[in-house]
C-alpha cells in the first residue's frame, strides 16, 4: 500500500538563490522573535516594549554596551573551544566541565601566586587553566581515540562529575571560613585581571577571548594542521586514505578544545567573580555549542554570534528588571534561534517544490 504523498518535496539545489543569502540571518532573527513573542505575551507584557529593553536598550548606554562585551567574553572562548572540536568531527559537549576545571586551577593559582608580579602571575594562570581544561578533556578524548567510546556521552557524563567535584571542593577544603558560603577564598589582587576601562566590568579576559578568535582563524585556515582537522571533520575514512593520522589529529583538537574551555573558566574567576563558585558558568559550555553552530564553525561567525548572545544575555536581565519577564527568556531565545537556524540552513541547499 502506497503511503499518502505529501504534496511538496525538498529538491537539492547546488546554488542557493543569490537573493536568499543575505536574507537568511534576517529571517532567522524574525522567526526567532516571532516565536519568543508568544512567550512574552504569556507574561502579559508588551512584546515590542520587551524587545526594546531586550535588544536596543543594552546598546544605548556605554555601561550596558560594555556589559554586552563582558557577557560575550566566556561565550567567545567556549564557542572557539567547541569549534576546534566540532570542526574535527569530535563532538566535545564537555566544555562546561572543562571550563570548571580551568576555574579550579585559576582559584588555586590565584592564592598560590600571591605576591608574584601580575605580568608573570596572569600568564601562569592562563596556562594553568589551559592545562587543567586539557587534562579534563584528555579522558574522553583518549577513550574515543583508543577505545572508540562515544565522546558525546562521556563528555556529558564528565560534566556531571565535575559539578560534584566543584561542590565537594567548595563544601570541603575551600569553604570560605569567614562567610561560611560555599565559595573559595578570594584570589590575590595581583592575579585579578585588570580592567580595560576603569569603573566598568570589562576586563583583560575580553582581550584573551579576541586572541582566542584570532588563534582559531589562524589554525583553521592558515596551517596544515587546520587543514587536517577539517579533512577529518569532513570524513574520517577519506582523511585516513589521504594519509592523515586521524586519531592523532582528533586527540590534539580535543585537547586544544578542552584547554580553551579551561581558559574561559580562568577568565570568569580572575575577571569577574574572584572566587570559585558553584554557578560560575550559566551553561556557557553548552551555549558554546550553539555559538559554534550558528557561527558555522568559523572564527568570524563565532565572533559575531558571541557578541549577539552577549547582547541577549544582557538584554534578558534588562527585560527582567524593567518588566518582570523571567530572565530565562534569554536562554529560550538562544535555543530557539539555534533550532530556527538549523531549519533555515536547509533552505539554503534545498528548494521546496510542488510534486509533479
Amino acid at each position: 500500500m502506497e503511503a499518502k504523498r505529501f504534496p511538496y518535496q525538498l529538491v537539492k539545489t547546488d546554488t542557493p538563490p543569490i537573493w536568499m543569502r543575505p536574507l537568511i540571518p534576517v529571517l532567522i532573527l524574525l522567526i526567532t522573535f516571532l516565536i519568543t513573542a508568544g512567550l512574552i505575551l504569556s507574561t502579559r507584557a508588551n512584546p515590542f516594549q520587551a524587545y526594546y529593553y531586550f535588544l536596543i536598550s543594552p546598546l544605548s548606554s556605554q555601561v550596558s554596551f560594555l556589559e554586552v562585551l563582558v557577557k560575550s567574553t566566556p561565550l567567545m572562548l567556549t564557542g572557539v573551544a567547541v569549534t576546534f572540536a566540532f570542526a574535527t568531527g569530535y563532538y566535545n559537549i564537555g566544555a562546561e566541565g572543562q571550563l570548571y576545571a580551568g576555574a579550579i586551577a585559576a582559584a588555586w593559582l590565584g592564592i598560590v601566586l600571591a605576591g608574584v608580579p601580575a605580568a608573570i602571575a596572569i600568564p601562569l594562570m592562563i596556562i594553568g587553566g589551559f592545562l587543567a581544561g586539557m587534562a579534563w578533556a584528555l579522558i574522553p578524548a583518549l577513550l574515543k581515540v583508543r577505545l572508540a567510546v562515544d565522546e558525546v556521552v562521556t563528555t556529558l557524563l564528565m560534566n556531571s562529575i565535575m559539578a560534584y567535584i566543584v561542590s565537594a571542593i567548595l563544601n570541603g577544603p575551600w569553604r570560605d571560613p569567614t562567610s561560611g558560603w560555599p565559595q573559595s577564598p578570594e584570589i590575590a589582587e595581583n592575579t585579578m585581571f585588570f580592567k580595560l576601562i576603569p569603573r566598568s566590568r570589562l576586563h583583560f579576559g575580553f582581550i584573551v577571548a579576541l586572541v582566542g578568535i584570532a588563534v582559531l582563524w589562524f589554525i583553521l585556515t592558515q596551517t596544515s594542521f587546520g587543514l587536517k582537522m577539517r579533512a577529518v571533520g569532513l570524513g574520517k575514512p577519506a582523511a585516513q586514505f589521504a594519509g592523515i593520522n586521524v586519531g592523532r589529529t582528533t586527540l590534539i583538537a580535543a585537547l586544544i578544545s578542552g584547554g580553551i574551555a579551561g581558559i574561559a573558566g580562568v577568565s570568569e574567576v580572575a575577571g569577574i567573580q574572584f572566587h570559585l563558585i558553584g554557578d560560575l558558568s550559566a551553561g556557557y559550555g553548552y551555549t558554546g555549542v550553539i555559538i559554534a553552530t550558528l557561527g558555522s564553525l568559523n572564527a568570524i561567525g563565532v565572533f559575531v554570534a558571541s557578541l549577539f548572545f552577549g547582547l541577549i544575555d544582557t538584554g534578558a536581565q534588562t527585560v527582567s528588571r524593567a518588566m518582570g519577564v523571567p530572565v530565562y527568556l534569554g536562554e529560550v531565545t538562544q535555543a530557539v534561534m539555534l533550532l530556527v537556524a538549523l531549519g533555515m540552513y536547509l533552505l539554503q541547499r534545498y528548494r521546496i517544490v510542488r510534486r509533479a
Partner: protein
Amino acid sequence: MEVFLVNLIAATFRVSTPIVLAAIGETYSERAGILNLGIEGIMYFGAFVGFLIADKSGSLWLGLLMAILSGIVFGLLMGFFTVTLGVNQHVSGLGITLLHTGLTLFTFRLFYGGRSTPPSIPSFQTLNILQNNPILGPILSQYWLTYLTFLVIVPLAWWILYRTNFGLKIRSVGENPEAVDAAGISVPAVRYAALAIGGGLMAAGGAFLSLFQLGAFTHGIISGRGWVAIAIVIFGNWHPVRVMLGGLIFGGTFALQLRLQAMGLQLPVPYETFLALPYVVTIIALVIAGRNASYPAALLKPYRRE
C-alpha cells in the same frame, strides 16, 4: 545487614525506574536511526509539565498524561529536524534539550516566582504488598509505574522490536533505510513513530521523579539522568532487556550511595564522591561494553531519496 540489603534492593528498583523508562525510549529512537540528545530536556520538561498540571488541576493522572503528551510532541519536533530536514542529530538534540531547560525555568518562574523552597504536591503512593513480611514487603511495595515499567514496558519493547512487523520496520530503518524504502514503506513515518514513542517514555521517566518519587519539582530534578540513559542504551547494545539490566546497575549504584548517605557514616571522603559514583560507573560500563557495541548502521544518518 539484612535490613540494609532489603532497603537497597527496594531502592534500586525505585531509582532505576525513570532511567529505564528513558533508556527504553532512547532505544526505540536509536533503533530507528535517530540519536535523541533531546532526552535530558524532554525528561526535564516532562517532570515539570507533569508537576504543573497536577498542581493546578489537582489530578496526578492528568499531570502524567500531559507529561507523556509533551514528550510525544517534542519527540515529533526532534523528528522534524532530523527526519524531515535531516540536520545534524547531535546539534538538534542538544538544541531541544537547551530549549526545554530554558522553557521549564521560564515557566516555573512565571508560575512559582523565585521562591527558595520548591513547591510540593501529594504524590502517587506505593502499592502495599505483603506489608507484614519484613523482606518481601519493602521490596514489593513499589509504585505502580515501577511495576508497569519492569513487567510491561520492557518486555513489550522486546516483543515489539523483535516479534512484530512494526518492530522489524523500526530496526530496518535504523540499519538499512534504502531497503525499507525499496519495499514501499515510508522511512520518515517509521522514524517519526519511533521518536514519538521514545519521547513519551522519556517524559514519563521525568514525570516519575516529580509525580511519584518527590512530589515536587526542583531545578536539579533530572541532573544528567538523560545522559546516563543514553550511555545505558549503548551498554545494553540496543536490546531492551540488556538496557534494563544496565538501568538496574546504575540504579543499584545510585541506591547504594543513597543508603550510605542515609546511614550517616563518618567517611574519609566527601559525600559528593558517592553522588558522582554512578556517573563514573556508567563511564566504566561504557568502556567495557564499548568494544562489543554494534551501533545501528544508519544511526546519525539522515535518509533522503536520491
